[in-house]
């Protein structure tokens, strides 16, 4: 690929526009779906958009795997005046996770949504779904702080609608969506206040530019306040333990397909934003000086790992149990950040991905169980593993990955995280990590026993889920095993991302290293 320095004037190919296409494709699809107004076309378009963004994110990933980054100048306006999209290993990896999940969820959603939502809402459902996808991809791809907020709101607003669609199964979906709306809005407001403070101090909204201007401003109270607002605001979106209250209800009452998508992507995108602000905008030195990580973030992470896991143990509803397990697993990601090392961040990045696919597989199995038994309460899904062997086996595989049994993706995350703890000489944290995964053994095995060691409930439909659900479920479950054995993609990307993040920002990229330029001197 030619760079700016070699050829001053090059024609822009489609390939150079990949960063914006990533966001643009789903963004344009959403109104198109509404305009065409046919529910079959709606699904087709949504799937096409997801598939295209998967291709785009894969191509982007290939370009940045070597540790370089792509800087794309929106509309040819040079940053910091114009908006910059900046793709490096960290966000390409998350983009891949998001678009991959979307592509898997949509085929699954076809039957699941038809079962759970009346036909008249389908068109709007897929439009909203595409908007969520747009928002999440945008949040991750952009290099502009205010842009992050805008996309965050796009995805959040659409998500509230999607969660509320669970009302046809259970009216409580409405209050769940409302809770999420309130909490999400508070989070977004905090976040935008933080950005406002930063803008006040630096006069710029471009993240790389901000980083340069913030260097050495560590003692500035406004900057410190901005940091606090951003961490708490994003903390709400991430569902850091005491800020998690919206999550269980939202996951539980949302339609199955929505839960799959949210669980695998939305908190992960938020974790990414947190990372990006901590390490690229504020720079590692600032974060280190504030001593935030080990003494503030780590306790909350540990609290999440134990408290949320314990709550999960006592649930009587499979879906709700998995929601609490998600909160606990987010604890692992935060713990990786708080260890403040390349290995720790690698653990966070790789767990982000591994947990995403694990939860995707599990929540898809939940969706299949809902289709056949109507609910996910333990007493109603008893023995379903016997009549739905493929779904049951997917639960077992996903569960093993959640526990972190070797040969599964979850094991890799745990390995790297424990290794990071040992490297930091924090052996007690290593012990706490493994101890908390024992709680996962308890809550997952309870479900396995229920699925296999009872006779099926007479009112349930004794039939395996349709192939359109089983195949995506097994792709996710197979990925749990694949990425547990061959980790060259996941660990490679996570390591590159972590090294990049720990290295701080590369500053304003007026002469970007790869592929970039775009718009400069046109």
């Amino acid at each position, binding site marked *: 690929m030619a760079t700016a320095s070699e050829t001053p004037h090059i024609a822009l190919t489609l390939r150079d526009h990949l960063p914006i296409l990533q966001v643009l494709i789903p963004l344009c699809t959403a109104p198109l779906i509404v305009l065409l107004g046919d529910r079959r076309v709606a699904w087709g378009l949504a799937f096409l958009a997801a598939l295209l963004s998967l291709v785009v994110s894969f191509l982007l990933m290939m370009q940045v795997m070597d540790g370089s980054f792509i800087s794309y100048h929106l509309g040819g306006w040079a940053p910091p005046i114009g908006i910059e999209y900046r793709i490096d290993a960290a966000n390409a990896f998350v983009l891949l996770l998001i678009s991959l999940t979307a592509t898997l969820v949509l085929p699954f959603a076809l039957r699941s949504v038809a079962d759970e939502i009346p036909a008249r809402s389908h068109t709007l459902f897929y439009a909203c779904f595409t908007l969520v996808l747009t928002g999440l991809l945008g949040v991750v791809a952009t290099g502009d702080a205010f842009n992050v907020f805008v996309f965050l709101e796009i995805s959040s607003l659409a998500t509230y609608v999607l969660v509320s669609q669970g009302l046809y199964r259970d009216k409580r979906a409405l209050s769940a969506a409302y809770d999420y709306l309130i909490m999400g809005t508070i989070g977004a407001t905090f976040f935008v206040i933080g950005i406002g403070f930063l803008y006040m101090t630096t006069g710029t909204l471009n993240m790389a530019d901000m980083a340069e201007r913030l260097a050495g401003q560590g003692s500035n109270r406004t900057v410190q306040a901005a940091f606090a607002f951003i961490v708490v605001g994003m903390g709400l979106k991430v569902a850091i333990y005491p800020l998690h209250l919206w999550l269980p209800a939202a996951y539980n009452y949302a339609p199955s397909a929505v839960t799959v998508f949210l669980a695998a992507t939305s908190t992960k995108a938020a974790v990414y934003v947190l990372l990006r602000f901590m390490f690229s905008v504020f720079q590692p030195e600032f974060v280190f000086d504030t001593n935030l990580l080990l003494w503030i973030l780590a306790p909350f992470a540990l609290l999440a790992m134990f408290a949320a896991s314990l709550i999960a143990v006592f649930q009587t509803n499979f879906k709700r149990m998995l929601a609490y397990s998600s909160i606990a697993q987010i604890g692992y990601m935060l713990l990786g950040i708080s260890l403040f090392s390349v290995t720790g961040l690698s653990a966070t990045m790789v767990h982000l991905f591994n947990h995403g696919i694990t939860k995707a597989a599990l929540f898809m199995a939940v969706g299949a169980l809902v289709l056949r038994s109507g609910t996910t309460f333990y007493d109603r899904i008893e023995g379903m593993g016997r009549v739905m062997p493929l779904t049951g086996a997917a639960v077992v595989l996903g569960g*093993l990955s959640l*526990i*972190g*049994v*070797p*040969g599964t993706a979850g094991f*890799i995350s*745990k*390995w*790297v995280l*424990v*290794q990071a703890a*040992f*490297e930091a000489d924090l*052996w007690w944290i*290593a*012990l706490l990590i*493994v*101890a908390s*995964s*024992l709680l996962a*053994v*308890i809550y997952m*095995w309870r479900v396995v*026993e229920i699925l*296999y*060691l009872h006779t099926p409930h007479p009112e349930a439909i004794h039939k395996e889920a349709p192939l359109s659900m089983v195949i995506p479920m097994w792709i996710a479950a197979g990925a749990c095993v694949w990425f547990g*054995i*061959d*980790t*060259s993609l996941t*660990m490679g990307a996570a*390591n590159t991302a972590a090294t990049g993040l720990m290295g701080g920002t590369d500053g304003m990229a007026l002469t970007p290293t790869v592929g970039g330029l775009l718009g400069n001197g046109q």
Partner: protein
Amino acid sequence: MDTNTLIFLALLLPVLAMFGNMVFARQDNLRDGFTFVCAILTFGAVLGVLGNLGNSTSEEIVLVEMLPGLQIALQVEPLGLMFALVASGLWIVTHIYGLGYMRGNKEKHHARFFACFSVAISAAIGIAFSANLLTLFLFYEVLTVSTYPLVAHKGTPEAIRGARTYLGVLIGTSIALFLTAIIWTYTLAGTLDFAPGGILQGKVEGLLVPVLLGLFAFGIGKAALMPFHRWLPAAMVAPTPVSALLHAVAVVKAGVFTMLKVGVYTFGIDFLADTGASDWLMWIAAYTILASSIVAYQQDNLKRRLAYSTVSQLSYVTLGLALATQMGVMGGALQIAMHAMGKITLFMCAGAIYVATHKSNISEMKGLGRSMPFTYIAFLIGALSIIGLPPLGGSWSKWLLMVGAADADHQIMIGVLMASSLLSLSYLLPVVAQGFFSTSPDNPYNGIKEAPAFCYIPPVFTAIGCVILFLYAGTLVEFLTPVLEEAQ
């Protein structure tokens, strides 16, 4: 065929048997015949590896690089080869026995049962041929998970409870302690390969050595060191073939085998001896040996009695390692084979009695010996081997362990071993004595005959194996000597 192909065959043939069980789930004879052929071929493959051992250097086969610098890799070495031989050889015997037992006892879900059984065997062979701790841990956990459905097989509340304890203890210890120890070792040594003389020498010192050893010793829950032994009696709710092959041979021997591997190839015997890090482990092992013998003595349920006897006998291996002398380790290694042959005999006899009479308590077995002479004679031979009397295999391992204890200047351990022999005499022989010599006044067992031939011929066969092992122990010792020489 070259060694690599044979190792893959030994690993994959049991997996093929699993698929066979799933495909032919409803054709009983075809399915069981297929598994039988796979079992024989698996044993043949392992024998082939043995035959190749002399004429080709054993090199590492890297399957996949799991994390940078951490590979899933296989390698042949004598200790592992012996374990693989024991597991795959006894699989054939147990499969025949299992057919008789499952059909004679009218158990359900045969296909699932034999499928899980095959996976467990594959995992055991994987453990035997692992080239590093990571690979070993992978197969170790596969073995745990694949045996869980076997323990829960009956689906009764009792079976579910037992299976829960089984999984809880095994997964719990392995993830909380074993995994921690492995990652810690990796952080210290930068490698997990099994290397002659160990990899930790000079990397860790002081109090941390016994702590690390403790994480390993208790983390390897399959070695059933007290207080993490409860899973083994709990697993006795499984059908007897499972107790026989898995809980007397494959699973528990995987535990003590791992213990020996870690001791010899991760720490190194000399390192352990120099630092004295394993002294405390010796006492724990001695305690386990005696305490579980006493518990065994109090059990009326035959299988539970045998289970506690296994807990006791497993700690012989741990003791052998903890002595940190060459003879001790050799005794421990021999004990893997000797105890396997003896204990599988006892379990198969217990199962045969159950199939014939549906009795599982010893107090109800009076006078059965006269109706079931083959079963009881096999039991007697197995029992004598466990006790450690010549001319049976068990005597050699006990002898070497005592020599090892003397070498290490821990004479008190000789006393422990002798006391344990006496205790096992007192809890095993009454079963036989009752069978032959006591009669209840109104003997209700007049109509009792031997169990089906499939059930009583395999134990007779393994009982003869105990005698053969006594005669050929020298060959086995010679075969295993390289393990110790490398450690120099």
